[in-house]
């Protein structure tokens, strides 16, 4: 497979693609037509279960639409270089390593715009189309470290980097070197982008299932991949829980007065049979001694307790007592709507 870059004068961007013997320039009109066609057609497809509605959208926003969300200048910094667009295949050519994070969600593509001013560190804005607000929120929760700001739907700033999510977008704005002047410009650029994204997106319903007492809000993680789960809380090198693009999960951390934090994992599958299979596998591999009861005091003296309800699997790790774990699960059960 060849890596290619096509400058599209009409769109004013450089499209980075991976393909063999494909003249993207020639195909672009057909591609855009297909996208428009899908917009029209997709209303009829999105009739599945409500909570999967957003990430079953196959639409990808047009490049013009993405471009319109980024300003041409901020303070005295101007967008001089061509914009670049990367998709799921070419993301590694732009982002080394962390590309996997975006691919672990339903990432569609990213528009990157560089702002320059002679003698000053450059600013870079990356606008990620995550396909749905759930995935935009999810990728934001992957790294929540930093000073919280009132920008977008949630935002943090640290070390010259501003990250926020709004609607189906995850936005990163950073300065190649942090100075008081670049910090001001980064925040201003963020506000400009925020103002151009007109809609807000809903939080994933799964997050609303989390009991609030003792919850550390800034450590809630929403994801679909067991790699992301393991990044935040290692469970197993093999996916025991049936995670994937059609599954959603939330990991929450609670301080409840004991020495260790308690972790609550809530997973929702597309079908209840998948939940049952995941629960069975988790019991067999992780809690074989529990003989299917889903309750066990593990080697560190804490309790791991799980239950399923319909399509939802709930597991508490590191509870100081069995009762503490059961109480947390019971609170989740009460919040789950009857399915």
């Amino acid at each position, binding site marked *: 497979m060849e890596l290619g870059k096509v400058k599209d004068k009409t769109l004013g961007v450089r499209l980075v693609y991976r393909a063999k013997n494909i003249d993207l320039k020639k195909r672009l009109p057909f591609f855009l037509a297909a996208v428009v066609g899908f917009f029209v057609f997709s209303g009829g497809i999105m009739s599945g279960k409500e909570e999967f509605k957003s990430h079953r959208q196959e639409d990808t926003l047009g490049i013009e639409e993405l471009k319109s969300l980024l300003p041409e200048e901020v303070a005295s910094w101007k967008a001089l270089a061509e914009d670049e667009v990367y998709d799921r295949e070419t993301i590694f050519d732009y982002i080394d390593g962390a590309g996997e994070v975006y691919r672990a969600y339903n990432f569609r593509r990213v528009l990157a715009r560089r702002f320059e001013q002679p003698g000053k560190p450059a600013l870079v804005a990356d606008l990620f189309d995550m396909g749905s607000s759930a995935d935009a929120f999810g990728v934001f929760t992957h790294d929540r470290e930093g000073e919280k700001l009132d920008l977008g739907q949630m935002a943090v700033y640290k070390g010259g980097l501003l*990250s926020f999510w709004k609607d189906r977008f995850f936005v990163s704005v950073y300065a190649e070197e*942090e100075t008081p002047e670049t910090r001001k410009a980064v925040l201003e650029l963020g506000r400009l982008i925020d103002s151009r994204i007109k809609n807000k997106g809903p939080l994933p319903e799964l997050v609303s299932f989390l009991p609030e007492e003792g919850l550390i809000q800034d450590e809630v993680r929403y994801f679909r991949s067991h790699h992301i789960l393991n990044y935040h809380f290692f*469970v197993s090198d093999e996916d*025991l829980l049936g995670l994937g693009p059609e599954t959603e999960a939330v990991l929450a951390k609670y301080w409840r007065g004991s020495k260790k934090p308690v972790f609550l994992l809530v997973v929702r599958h597309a079908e209840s049979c998948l939940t049952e299979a995941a629960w069975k596998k988790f019991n067999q591999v*992780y809690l074989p001694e529990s003989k299917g009861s889903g309750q066990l005091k593990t080697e560190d003296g804490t309790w791991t307790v799980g239950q399923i309800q319909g399509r939802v699997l709930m597991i508490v790790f590191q509870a100081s007592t069995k009762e503490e774990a059961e109480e947390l699960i019971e609170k989740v059960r009460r919040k789950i709507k009857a399915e």
Partner: protein
Amino acid sequence: MGRKPITRRDFLKAAAGLPVAGAILPALTKAASSGQPVPGTELKKAKVVLIRDKDVLDDIGHIRYEVIERMMDQAVCTLTGASSPVEAWRQLIKADDTVGIKSNVWSYLPTPKELEEYLKRRVMDCGVPEDRIGISDRGVLKHPIFQKATALINARPGRTHHWSGMGTCIKNYIMFVPRPAEWHSDSCADLAKIWFLPEVKGKTRLNILVMLTPLFHGIGPHHFSKQYTWPYCGLVVSQDPVAADATGLRILQAKRKEYFGEERPLQPTPHHIFLAETRHGLGMASPEKIELIKLGWQEGILV
């Protein structure tokens, strides 16, 4: 069914001193790092030279060629026991070799051009003509020199890495596979396998983990902020990539502890380094199996 999955409970058992049936744990802890050595590797320690010079960077952070040349010359002489740099290099590279210098082009922290230039000049000092020396990163599979290479030199910056925990000498060879993303599972656990592919097996003569301005903490999509680099002014040089990486890891971890004021393990864990020893037998990761020779500037050396 394949091997038994490794779970969190295996780590809890290991921490509690209980037997872990059948599982070979990634050596993430001191306890795990004292696992069984690979047969045949028990007797010989891996030699690693850590050399530092605070003058390698000028006032605005640019690299001084003459200093990096001096550092590298001293490092290879120490590694090989040779009395002169050319003699040392001639122990590593033969005149009839075709040499690929595997660099790293990551824009925020690439392999320094000054180091690439030094390596090319010393390879030429071994009698290798310029047209049999190639320098590349992402294009190695299609590079005519790399396709014919009989010797490889591996040079890359040491840094934290969002997916594998650490950007390592081991990981630098991921460009020798056509689809690198296929090696990303379990935080790139089995990267060392790449070193046994025909394109690279047995060809690597030297590994250089560049620790001039290492990145000890990554943020954001690009996993970079200059705020989390520091002028360590070091090079880690070894014929064993695993030993070089394990040494670099110790430096990064020590810097994180110093900066954050607490133990802040790399996330995700760079267990591919330890699995390179325990699962793949590529080299030595455990400190007790590494002979670390420290040269030059000692202040703030961290290991």
